[in-house]
C-alpha cells in the first residue's frame, strides 16, 4: 500500500527543491507578500508590546512564515483552520484583516474578538478560523472534531490542525490520531517543529525527535518538510490535503522550522546558542530564500518587490494606527457572550 509512504521513514526525507519550477511568478510574489506581511506585522506587534499597548502573553511567528503561507496556498475555502496561541500569522493568511487582529492585540472593541480574547484567543467564524487556543494541545482534538464535522456534513472540507513540537507530547494528540485514523477523518496535522518548546530543546522533551514518525502506530502517513521553503511546504501540503479530501484519512506533516524571537515577549531565550538564531536568519530565512532565488533566476525584479514592501508597510502602519485609536470595549460588553 503506497499509503505507507513516509511512515517507515524511508521516503520521509526533507525535501529541498529550492523553488523548483512548480510556482509561477504570480504565486511566488504572493508568497513573498504574505510572508512579508506576517513579518512586518509581528515586528510591529513586538514594538507595541514594548510600549505597553499590548499586554499579557504575546507569541510572535517571526521565522516560521513559510509554514502557514505554504499550507494555505494548498487549501481552499471549504477547509477549516485551527492552531495554538502563536496565531497572528495564521489569521493574516486566512484573510482576516490586519486591522482587526492588531486591534484585538491592543484589546479594543474593533478587534476580531471585540477585545475580549487577546493574542492567544482569536477566532473568525467567517474565515473558518477556529482559534487561537491557549492550552497546549487542545487544538489537536478540536481540529479532529472539525474534521469529524466535515465528514459528517459531507462538505468535502479538510481540517488543518497546527501545533508545536512541544504540544506533540500531549496525550490528547494520540487519542485524536487514533480516532482520526480509525474513522478516516479528513484532517491534516501540521507540526510546526521550531525545535523548542519554550526553553526546552526538542531532544530534551521528545524520545523520538523525528516527529513525522509519531503517526506510525496509528497508520497515519508522516512526512518531514523543509518548513523554511514555502514551495516545499506548498507541495507537501497539497499531497496531504488531497489525501485527506479523497477520504483516505489523516496525514501528518512535520514542518522543520525555527522561531527567531523568544517563546513569548517576556522570554529572553538564553537557552539556545547565541549565534543560532543569527545563523538561521542569515542562511535559512524563508523570505530571503524566495527573494534571492526569484531575483537570481530573473523571475521578478527588485522593483516588483519594492512595490510589495511599500504596500505591506502601509497595511501594517494603518493597522497599528487603527489598533491604537479604536475605543476600548464598552463596559456593557463585560457580561455579554456568556450564553446565547
Amino acid at each position, binding site marked *: 500500500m503506497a499509503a505507507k509512504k513516509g511512515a517507515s521513514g524511508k521516503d520521509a526525507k526533507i525535501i529541498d527543491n529550492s523553488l523548483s519550477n512548480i510556482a509561477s511568478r504570480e504565486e511566488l510574489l504572493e508568497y513573498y507578500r504574505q510572508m512579508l506581511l506576517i513579518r512586518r506585522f509581528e515586528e510591529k506587534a513586538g514594538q507595541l508590546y514594548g510600549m505597553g499597548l499590548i499586554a499579557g502573553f504575546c507569541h510572535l511567528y517571526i521565522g516560521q512564515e513559510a509554514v502557514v503561507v505554504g499550507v494555505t496556498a494548498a487549501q481552499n475555502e471549504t477547509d477549516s483552520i485551527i492552531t495554538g496561541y502563536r496565531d497572528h500569522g495564521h489569521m493574516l493568511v486566512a484573510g482576516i484583516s490586519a486591522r482587526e487582529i492588531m486591534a484585538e492585540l491592543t484589546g479594543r472593541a474593533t478587534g476580531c474578538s471585540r477585545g475580549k480574547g487577546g493574542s492567544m484567543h482569536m477566532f473568525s467564524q467567517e474565515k473558518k478560523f477556529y482559534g487561537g487556543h491557549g492550552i497546549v494541545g487542545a487544538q489537536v482534538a478540536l481540529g479532529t472534531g472539525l474534521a469529524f464535522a466535515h465528514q459528517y456534513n459531507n462538505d468535502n472540507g479538510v481540517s488543518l490542525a497546527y501545533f508545536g513540537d512541544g*504540544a506533540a507530547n500531549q496525550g490528547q494528540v494520540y487519542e485524536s490520531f487514533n480516532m482520526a485514523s480509525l474513522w478516516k477523518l479528513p484532517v491534516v496535522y501540521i507540526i510546526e517543529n521550531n525545535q523548542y518548546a519554550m526553553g526546552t530543546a526538542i531532544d530534551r*522533551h521528545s524520545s523520538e525527535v523525528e516527529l513525522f514518525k509519531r503517526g506510525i502506530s496509528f497508520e497515519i502517513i508522516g512526512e518531514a518538510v523543509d518548513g523554511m521553503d514555502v514551495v516545499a511546504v506548498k507541495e507537501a501540503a497539497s499531497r496531504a490535503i488531497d489525501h485527506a479530501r479523497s477520504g483516505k484519512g489523516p496525514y501528518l506533516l512535520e514542518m522543520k522550522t525555527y522561531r527567531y524571537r523568544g517563546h513569548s515577549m517576556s522570554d529572553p531565550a538564553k537557552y539556545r546558542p547565541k549565534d543560532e538564531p543569527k545563523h538561521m536568519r542569515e542562511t535559512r530565512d524563508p523570505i530571503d530564500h524566495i527573494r534571492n532565488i526569484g531575483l537570481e533566476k530573473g523571475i521578478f525584479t527588485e522593483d516588483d518587490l519594492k512595490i510589495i514592501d511599500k504596500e505591506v508597510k502601509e497595511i501594517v502602519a494603518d493597522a497599528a494606527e487603527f489598533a491604537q485609536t479604536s475605543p476600548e470595549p464598552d463596559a456593557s*460588553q463585560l457580561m455579554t457572550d456568556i450564553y446565547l
Partner: protein
Amino acid sequence: MAIEILMPALSPTMEEGTLAKWLVKVGDEVKSGDVLAEIETDKATMEVETIDEGTIEALLFDAGTAGIKVNTPIALISGEGSVSAPPPKVEAASVAIANISTPVSVVSNLVEPDWDANTPTIKITVRDALRDAMAEELRRDEKVFLMGEEVAQYQGAYKVSRGLLDEFGPKRVIDTPITEHGFAGLATGAAMAGLKPIVEFMTFNFAMQAIDHIINSAAKALYMSGGQISTSIVFRGPNGAASRVGAQHSHDYSSWYSNVPGLKVIAPYDAADAKGLLKAAIRDPNPIVFLEHEMLYGIEFDIPDVEDYVLPIGKAKIRREGTDVTITAHSRMVGHALKAAEELEGLGISAEVIDLRTLRPLDTETIINSVKKTNRLVAAEEGWGPMGVGAEVIAVVVDQAFDWLDAQPVRVHQKDCPLPYAANLEALSLPQPSDIVAAVRKICNK
C-alpha cells in the same frame, strides 16, 4: 528624521529596567532584527531589537544605567524610518496595567504573630521563600523531588525553582515534556511507592489536564485502599488571574480543589506563610494542592530568620484586628482586604481581616470567634462566586453563629464571566479593594 528607540516593556508588570549593555555604537548601520542592547529586569535579561533601518545617531543612556522607565527614548536612529514614523502617543490611562496592586507592605500590628518579637527577620520575596522551602526540604529528605515544565534548566517559568538544579542535580529536579496528565499521574504513582514528589504546574490552568489524577488517583487512594495506599505529594504553582493573559490563563481553582475530601488545599499570601506552609505541605503524608499567585511572587515580606520555619496546616491568621466587621480572604485578596480595611478605618469602620491560608481544612473556629465579636461578615475571593469559597465561609457562619449576625453576610468575588483581555473590562471583572469597601459599607450602614 530621527526615530526614537524606546525602553520596551518586557512583561506587563515591568515599569523600569537597567540598560545592561549596548551592542551597537554611534555610526553603526542597523536593519530590522538587529540587536541594539541588552536590558535587565528583576526577572530576566532581554535583547532589544530594532525594527527600523538606518544609522545610530545617538545612545541616550550609558550602559549600566538603572531605573530607566518604560517608553523613555534610549537611542536615536536616523534613516528612512520604519513601518510608521515616530511611535504614536500611548493612551496612558487605558493601557495602564489594571490589576497590579502596589506592593502591600507587611502590616506591623500583626495579631497572633507566628513568631515572637525577639526573632530576627529578613526581607524576602514570595518567590524566594517558596524556593527556600523546597531547597530545605530537598536537603532534608532524599525522597523529595521536584518535577514540572521548565523547572530545571530554565529555573522555572516564573523563576521559582532558581538554583535548584545546580544544587540537587537532574535526578531530583526534573524537566518534563508538556504532558500534565502524564507527569501528574507518574508522580502520583511514585508517591504511592513512597516517594515525595513536588509537582509544579506552570500555572494551575494547565493542571486541568491533570485534574483527574489529582482527584481520582491522589485524593481517593487512601480511602479506596482501606487505608493502605497513601500519597504524600504536593501539586503547586500559580493560580488565579495574572495580568492581561485572558480567559484560558486566569482561572482561580480555589473552590474546585477545596470541594474534594482527601485533598488539603493551601493558598498563602505572604512570604513567611509561603515558606512555612510549603515546608509543612511537603512533609504532610497527604496529597496537597498548594495555590500560589503570580502577582505576589515579586513582593517582599518579613520572614523569621530561623533554621526550620514550619507552620501548621489548617490555621487561619488574623492579619488585622477589628471590631465592626470580619473580612475573610486568601492569597492575593488578603492584600486587597488589608487595603480596604485601611480605607474603612478612615470611614470610622474597624475591620478585622482573616487570612484563611488553608482552605481545606478550613479554620472555622477562627472565623466563628471573629464573627461573634464583629457580628458582620464579608467573604472575599478572587474567583467566581457561585458555589465558591465565600459561599462556604458564609454557610459555616450562618450554621454556627447565626444568632451573632447583625446583618446579612456578603460575598465579594470576580464577575460571573470568563476573564476578558481588554484592560478596562479586566479591571471591571476582577474584585478590587473598592469592592470590599462597598460591601462592608452596605452591611455597616455607613
